[in-house]
């Protein structure tokens, strides 16, 4: 590794460390200290910051409880209305019971994504450990809910009544596989999008070391940053609406 870096430096002064930004480091103490489960790390800090932002927007921002809202309250109401309508549209009235959970997911992912776009920031949602816990939480929660609400009828989700009889077992197998792939795609989609964008910015930033390439590098970083701003919002939305769709399957397993 060391020799590789030296060789790279020797070639043209180019250094690429696109993944350094994703390192988990203890916030206090020496770098290289062991990270145990309770250590306060940069991940802890940025997650906490996301929580603080949620509180600032939704609690502090709405403390006026004004019928004619302030700007921040208006934004809070906008987010509330957006997610509320999403849950209601996708899952129906019964799904609104789970609205606080979905709102929690959406706000955590949204703020993590956007805070991660700050220079020198750390993005918790770029870690598969985080997104996998989120996705598995949704998967397990939805599956348990499906069986609790519908009993064995929940398995009807895999048994296509519209399909010809001889196709049904085959479809059922495919449906079961796709059902179990859900948490994988659900989590990797989110983490992958963020990692790709963040790493790409770092790669282009690495090119800035060469004077001739630096203007191009700046333009590219700007462009990708703009794209990342979109991706941060869209991925939070996608994760949330998929959660709603899975929840709908649990509440109404018959297609």
């Amino acid at each position, binding site marked *: 590794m060391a020799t590789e870096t030296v060789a790279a430096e020797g070639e043209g002064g180019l250094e690429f460390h696109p993944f350094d930004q994703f390192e988990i480091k203890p916030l206090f103490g020496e770098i290289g200290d062991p990270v145990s489960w309770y250590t306060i790390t940069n991940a802890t800090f940025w997650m906490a910051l996301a929580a603080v932002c949620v509180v600032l927007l939704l*609690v502090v921002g709405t403390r006026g409880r004004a019928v004619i809202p302030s700007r921040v309250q208006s934004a809070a109401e906008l987010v509330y209305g957006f997610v509320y309508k999403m849950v209601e549209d996708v899952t129906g009235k019964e799904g609104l019971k789970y609205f606080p959970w979905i709102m929690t997911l959406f706000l955590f992912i949204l703020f993590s994504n956007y805070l991660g776009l700050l220079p020198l920031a750390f993005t918790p949602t770029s870690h598969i450990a985080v997104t996998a816990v989120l996705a598995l939480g949704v998967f397990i929660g939805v599956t348990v809910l499906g069986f609790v609400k519908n009993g064995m009828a929940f398995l009807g989700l895999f048994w296509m009544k519209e399909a010809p009889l001889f196709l049904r077992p085959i479809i059922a197998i495919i449906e079961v596989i796709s059902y179990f792939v859900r948490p994988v795609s659900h989590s990797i989609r989110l983490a992958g999008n963020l990692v790709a964008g963040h790493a790409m910015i770092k790669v282009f930033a690495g090119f800035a070391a060469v004077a001739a390439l630096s203007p191009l590098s700046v333009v590219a970083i700007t462009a990708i940053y703009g794209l990342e701003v979109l991706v941060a919002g869209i991925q939070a939305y996608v994760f949330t609406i998929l959660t709603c769709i899975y929840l709908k399957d649990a509440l109404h397993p018959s297609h």
Partner: protein
Amino acid sequence: MATETIAAGELADHGAAGPGMPQLDVSSFPNQIFWLLVTLVVIYFVLSRFALPRIGAVLAERAGTITNDIAAAEELRHRAREAEAAYDKALADARAEANKIVADTKAQIQADLDAEMEKADAQIAEKTAESQKAIDEIREGAARNVSEVARDVAREIVAAFGTEADAKTVDSAVDAKLGERA
């Protein structure tokens, strides 16, 4: 041995920053998962206890206020319509009343006028009759005077001729002459 340990330590230090992705460093997973769960619980608690009920209440209150305002506006408009209708009706009534009064007054005046006219006509007729009578009397008087004067003149003329005129003859002659003229 010592160098090996250092090398191993360096490798371990570099392990996280090494060529692999930090995302795949399983040793950091418990930390991330623990703090993620803490964060999610905190956010969920804040949302479900404070934020969401409050925003929901504010939105409901606003919807209620808007509905009430619209209902009140509707009510006011309804009342304005009623007031306008009442006003129009009052105006129409007043107009009808005025017309009636005008017509009555006109009829009254006409009646009075007719009565006065009749009276005046009667008076005029009376006066006319009186005048006619006077004129007739005067005429009659005049005629009688004429015949008397004519008789006297005739008698005198006859007397001047020297003959005693028979009164009867003179009278009849004068009457005959006057009758011719009349």
